[in-house]
């Protein structure tokens, strides 16, 4: 068989791949025809959840349900901590206790309300920032990390400038607009069909099958997810409410849909841990950072873990880092887009910005200088790439022309400021496989058990395959979203586009080679000289046959080949970085912030689709504006409750809150030649710090804790 080289085409020879193609499922989504898990009909379910942050259940009485019209099934979540007479120990508000399935949502709600539960209420603690209070109650514990590199004490003592400060970033939640959940339908006693809102199509079937309440063969579970309404790292599992849905459907003998209510969605379906830190940073008068000494703490809920990776990207020669975890009765953490990085970036890049102010230097110069001398292993790119990206961003922002030191802006009324920060990420391709079928008429189908979490997975697959065969996009039918297709990895950690583009390219090249062999035999030409140009198979510029004729040589069965990945053949790679800069204005009377212009410069290796890649960055920037300025899980220590768990009080930006956004990819030829790298996480990392730094530059004082709400800004101004 002819051996075709496995690589991407030279950059300027692509016609579909590496082009800004509209997403192929865009019309389905925008017209409301795309079906999500919530759109499959079934009995309606209402969860009964705990109003208490810490409690034991002493009794559950489902008997009142028999008087509620329309109720078809009820479920009590199985024991978590069997302890004598108690059924549950509840460790956070919103813990699901029971679920009721009924004909209408109102009847399900009536049913949930009718269930009688008695609690023994226990003490709770939900204050994420108060290290002393946590320690006094025995709820703080040493973190996983206590490290010393070099001699930080001596370096701080001998430094020209030393800055100390307190910094923090509060917990946020994933807040998927499509709540977590599924619609489950049984086909007989032992076959289960699940429409699951999941980032993990191929990995969740076994979780349903293996649950004690389900207990069927994994081969008998079908998981489908054609479309998913947001995941952001929180939808990798069947989850206990998925099992509940399947159990209710079995009990009712009818399909059941169970999706979390908004309060539970925000409270228990995933959060991003908080981080707070006391930091000392020291530098030479030329801006060289020589030492870092920090103690940081925070919470990921009842497990008491905290964030790591501080200091971030820039690693001074001398450093000491100590961490403390706080145990809180708050909803558990799940991977939130770029786990650890936004917090680590916020707890580092804000400190460096304050150091720059103490040095009387432009922070751009301090960052430029220090990426070049960083001693750690966190730089995903050579320092020169970061420096080039900073210069590009500075140009787009006109940073050099605009920048003034804190309090030196000539403005009255709204105060203007500039801020910046850096980030890094891996983005290596996830594991996965696919099959590609070439039909005798030349049309192509692809199958992979992957998912589109909004990135544009279908479109990227179609581009890779169409480019390889020289076909128009419309000739390729992409099938994803079922665990009956070849398994593909979960969409987390920016692994999907690399994870699907490698296997599909490999499979398509393999198929092409097999077709060329048939053409070579039939038309007596050298298979190694053949190429596919869109309509024809050609050799040396001469048409040998049409694509359709070539495919026809496969016989009535056509051809099916499999592709796998990742492999070290250069199609995919890892390690990206970027810089973000923000120009904003602050109203000192109200504490309101207005984004004027926000620039992101990002490298991501080989770009499959510039339009979709740009959307990833734009979306991440808007999420940075959210957690930078307004989005926060607010816990009330008196009641133990998450007091803003709805979309009115959990403040996300609206369309008028984003300002002018500028996205620029750093893509010289060496980036194109690097291979495909994931993009989802990196651009969501540094915006929070950049916004916080711009506010400090604008108002002349550090607002130490993110999000920078009007109250925190006014408090900082009042204390200045």
């Amino acid at each position, binding site marked *: 068989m002819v051996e075709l080289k496995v690589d991407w085409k030279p950059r300027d020879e692509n016609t579909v791949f590496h082009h800004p193609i*509209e*997403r192929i*499922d*865009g*019309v*389905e*989504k*925008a*017209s*409301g*025809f*795309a*079906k*999500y898990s*919530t*759109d499959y*009909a079934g009995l309606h379910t209402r969860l009964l959840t705990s109003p208490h942050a810490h409690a034991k259940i002493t009794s559950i009485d489902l008997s009142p349900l028999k008087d509620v*019209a*329309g109720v078809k099934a009820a479920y009590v979540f199985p024991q978590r901590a069997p302890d004598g007479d108690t059924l549950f120990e509840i460790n956070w508000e919103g813990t699901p206790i029971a679920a009721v399935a009924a*004909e*209408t949502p*109102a009847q399900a709600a009536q049913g949930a309300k009718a269930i009688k539960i008695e609690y023994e209420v226990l003490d709770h603690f939900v204050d994420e920032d108060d290290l002393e209070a946590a320690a006094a109650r025995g709820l703080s514990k040493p973190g996983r990390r206590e490290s010393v590199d070099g001699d930080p004490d001596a370096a701080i003592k001998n430094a020209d400038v030393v800055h100390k400060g307190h910094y923090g970033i509060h917990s946020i939640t994933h*807040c*998927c*607009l*499509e*709540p977590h959940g599924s619609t489950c339908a049984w086909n007989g006693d032992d076959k289960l069909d699940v429409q699951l809102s999941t980032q993990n199509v191929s990995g969740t079937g076994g979780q349903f099958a293996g649950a004690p309440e389900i207990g069927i063969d994994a081969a008998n579970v079908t998981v489908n997810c054609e*479309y*998913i*309404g*947001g*995941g952001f790292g929180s939808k990798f599992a069947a989850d206990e409410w998925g099992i509940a849905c399947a159990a209710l459907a079995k009990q009712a003998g009818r399909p059941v849909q169970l*999706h*979390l*209510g*908004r309060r539970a*969605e925000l409270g228990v379906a995933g959060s991003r841990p908080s981080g707070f830190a006391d930091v000392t940073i020291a530098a030479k008068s030329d801006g060289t950072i020589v030492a870092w000494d920090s103690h940081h703490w925070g919470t990921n809920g009842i497990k008491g873990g905290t964030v790591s990776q501080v200091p971030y990207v820039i690693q001074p020669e001398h450093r000491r880092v100590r961490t403390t975890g706080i145990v809180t009765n708050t909803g558990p953490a799940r991977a939130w887009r770029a786990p650890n990085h936004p917090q680590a970036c916020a707890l580092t890049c804000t400190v460096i910005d304050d150091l720059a102010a103490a040095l009387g230097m432009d922070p751009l110069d301090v960052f430029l200088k220090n990426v070049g001398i960083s001693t750690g292993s966190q730089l995903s790119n050579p320092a020169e790439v970061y420096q080039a990206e900073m210069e590009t961003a500075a140009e787009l922002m006109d940073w050099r022309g605009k920048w003034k030191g804190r309090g030196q802006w000539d403005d009255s009324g709204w105060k203007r400021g500039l801020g910046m920060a850096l980030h890094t990420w891996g983005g290596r391709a996830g594991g996965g496989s696919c099959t590609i079928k070439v039909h005798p008429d030349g049309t192509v189908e692809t199958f992979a058990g992957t998912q589109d*979490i*909004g*990135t544009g997975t279908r479109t990227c697959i179609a581009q890779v395959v169409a480019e390889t065969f020289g076909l128009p996009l419309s000739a390729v039918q992409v099938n994803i979203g079922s665990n009956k297709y070849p398994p593909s990895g979960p969409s987390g950690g920016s692994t999907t586009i690399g994870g699907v583009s490698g296997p599909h390219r490999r499979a398509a090249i393999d198929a092409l080679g097999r077709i060329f062999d048939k053409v070579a035999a039939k038309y007596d030409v050298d298979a190694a000289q053949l190429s596919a140009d869109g309509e024809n198979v050609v050799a040396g510029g001469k048409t040998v046959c049409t694509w359709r004729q070539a495919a026809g040589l496969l016989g009535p069965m056509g051809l099916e080949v499999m592709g796998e990945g990742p492999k070290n053949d250069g199609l995919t790679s890892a390690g990206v970085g970027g810089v973000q800069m923000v120009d904003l204005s602050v109203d000192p009377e109200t504490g309101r912030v207005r984004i004027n212009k926000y620039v992101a410069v990002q490298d991501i290796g080989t770009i499959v689709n510039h*339009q*979709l890649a*740009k*959307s990833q960055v*734009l*979306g*991440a*920037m*808007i*999420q940075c504006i959210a957690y930078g300025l307004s989005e926060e899980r607010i816990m009330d220590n008196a009641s133990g409750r998450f007091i803003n768990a*709805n*979309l*009115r009080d959990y403040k*996300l*930006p*609206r*369309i*008028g809150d*984003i300002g002018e*956004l500028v996205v620029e990819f750093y893509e010289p030829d060496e980036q194109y030649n690097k291979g495909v790298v994931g993009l989802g996480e990196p651009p969501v990392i540094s915006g929070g710090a950049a916004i916080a730094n711009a506010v400090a530059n604008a108002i002349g004082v550090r607002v130490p804790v993110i999000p920078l709400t009007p109250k925190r800004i006014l408090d900082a101004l009042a204390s200045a």
Partner: protein
Amino acid sequence: MAATAVATRGEPAVAAQDGNTNVVSGAKEITLNVNGEDRKVTVEPRTSLLEVLRDQLGLTGCKDLQDIYVDGADTVMIDGKATYAGTTFALQAEGKKIRTVESLRDGRSIDPVIAGFVKHDGLQCGYCTPGFVVATRAFLEQNPTASLEEIRKGLGGNVCRCGTYDGITKCALELAKGGA
């Protein structure tokens, strides 16, 4: 469906709005005009328009975020005005012209707003998108030559988590400039 004597707070609101003092309780068959067709549905006083559209008419383009309906994913047009279906009782919509996102596509023929969302990639996961499309269509009908500032204010009733506002803004601005 069981009859219920539950008095809802919606009833006085319905009565006040429509000048109709009939007290309604229990399930009742009514006719709603949806996307140009009269459709018979069975509703209780507490039944929202969103519930009827999704569960009885299979029009799942409008989404239920299981919230207090301030998010816009449930946006439909009632007599041309963008309205949250989740805060509208089905009874309130009787006798009015209801349009859902599904009316903006007929096979391959699509409304320019849908084409604009796709062209400017004003969508990612797509869950908020149909509601945003309807809001944009209604907004442009009322404000065919809207400015950037008007778009930023006028489309503030919809929330997106993925962060697709930039593409939506560009879509609306292009349609406003070109006359949508």
